[in-house]
């Protein structure tokens, strides 16, 4: 059975329908990349899975249990952690406080400050500095570390490379690969198609609130993805055209 199952999810902002009947499954240990143009509904879908955006219709299931009505903080205890777009660190807290404030109350679990520092060794000298003084890449690392500190079963990662220098993106993704290798289940939003295809087992492409393409990252033809990404249905249907 899949760890996460999203069924016919509808999300709205007033009259605007951001997510339209999306169904999605993520298996234990799998890495799925959610791609699509700006405004395709990726972030809203992620926030609905985490419990930060109440859906209009549909269901979210974790391990077969319906969690649609649970608030975000309870879902964290069940094992869902969202690393939000724009990082959203607690600027006045030090790096260590940012990490430890997220630690699960129950003891045990793989992740603690030491384990996070092993994955992101460049945070070690920054541990006692206010989070606001860090570079973008370091802040993203703290944000991911903060999510890991809750000992999640499913890590949701929204636009980890947003606004970062290419070298910082490389560092963040190298560390992320370590986390994935250890068996973490990850659903991530990524604008960079090449990077998404490299890190993910499966790719889900959204367009205007709907899933328009889904498949194994290795077997998907790049042209088909680009067509789905921009909604070029004529090319997708015609096959040899253009």
């Amino acid at each position, binding site marked *: 059975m899949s760890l996460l199952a999203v069924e016919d999810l509808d999300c709205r902002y007033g009259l605007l329908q951001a997510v339209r009947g999306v169904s999605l499954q993520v298996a234990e240990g799998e890495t799925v990349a959610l791609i699509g143009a700006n405004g395709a509904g990726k972030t809203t879908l992620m926030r609905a899975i985490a419990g930060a955006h109440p859906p209009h219709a549909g269901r979210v299931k974790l391990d077969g249990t319906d969690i649609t009505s649970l608030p975000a903080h309870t879902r964290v205890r069940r094992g869902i952690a969202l690393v939000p777009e724009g990082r959203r660190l607690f600027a006045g807290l030090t790096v260590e406080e940012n990490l430890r*404030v997220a630690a699960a109350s129950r003891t045990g679990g793989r992740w603690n400050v030491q384990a996070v520092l092993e994955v992101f060794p460049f945070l070690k000298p920054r541990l006692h500095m206010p989070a606001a003084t860090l570079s973008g890449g370091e802040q993203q690392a703290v944000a991911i570390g903060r999510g890991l500190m809750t000992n999640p079963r499913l890590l949701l990662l929204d636009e980890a490379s947003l606004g970062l220098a290419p070298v910082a993106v490389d560092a963040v993704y190298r560390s992320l690969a370590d986390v994935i290798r250890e068996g973490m289940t990850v659903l991530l939003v990524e604008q960079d198609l090449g990077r998404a295809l490299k890190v993910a087992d499966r790719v889900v492409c959204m367009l205007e609130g709907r899933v328009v393409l889904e498949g194994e990252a290795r077997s998907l033809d790049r042209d088909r993805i680009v067509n789905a990404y921009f909604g070029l249905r004529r090319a997708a249907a015609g096959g040899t055209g253009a």
Partner: protein
Amino acid sequence: MSVANAILQGIFLGAFYAVLACGLSLMFGVMRIINLAHGDVAVLGAYLVLVIVQGTGLSPLLAFVIALPAMIALGYVLQLTVLQRALKAGILTPLLATFGLSIVIQNLLLLKFSPDVHSLGASAGGLTTESWNLFGSISISALGLVVLAVAVVVFAALHLFLSRTRPGWRMRATAEDPDAAELIGIDSRHVYARATAIAVAIAGLGGLFLAIRSVFDPGSGPTQLIFAFEAVVIGGMGSLWGTLLGGLALGVAQTLGAQLNPEYAALSGHLLFLAVLILRFGGVRLVRFGARA
């Protein structure tokens, strides 16, 4: 010498204002709620202590220890029932809700205790009357010392709580970004309720000191709120240690003003408050306009 004595008395008075202002500052810092019922909550605490003293014959300080759990519970319930709903409805609603709460508390107290003036000064015994003289002209009262010591302990304890404990980190994290705090498993409603419980408990302490050092009646709350609010603003909104310093500055301004003429006490405190407002906000704007020009 009389100026030195006035400054010392101002510090004692300011410590009292700081205790009154502490909870107001905490609630604003954590939830951006300006609790207009804060002074009335303090007076409510004073009446609670009065009832316990009259019922048991205990000293006011011991009676406050007994009243403390009730004040904490009151704060917790107040947040979960009234303020939490108000917070959801936008930034101005808590202001209206606490304004209403202020009226409700005043009238309930009026109904139960009549408009008569009360004081706990007599029941506090030596604490109210004991004092020592230094160099003939400087007088140190036992009550002043106790209030100052308690104020420092309360602010230090709150500082340690916020900077060293996990519930404290959770409170600071929620204050900065409640949405992000929810995403790492923090129940913001619980954190807010805890903050209000602490604020109400410390307001009760302020009420106790008010009752010992002077007199109170059901309508005393708003005056206390004004002094507490001035202390918070003088010290910088949202800064805890600033509130302690703001309280002390307000107290010193009042006693120095009274040195000139007893009628100037409250006035000179208000003038300091206005001066800080102009320097901090008006002044900054002038600089900005200057830079743009």
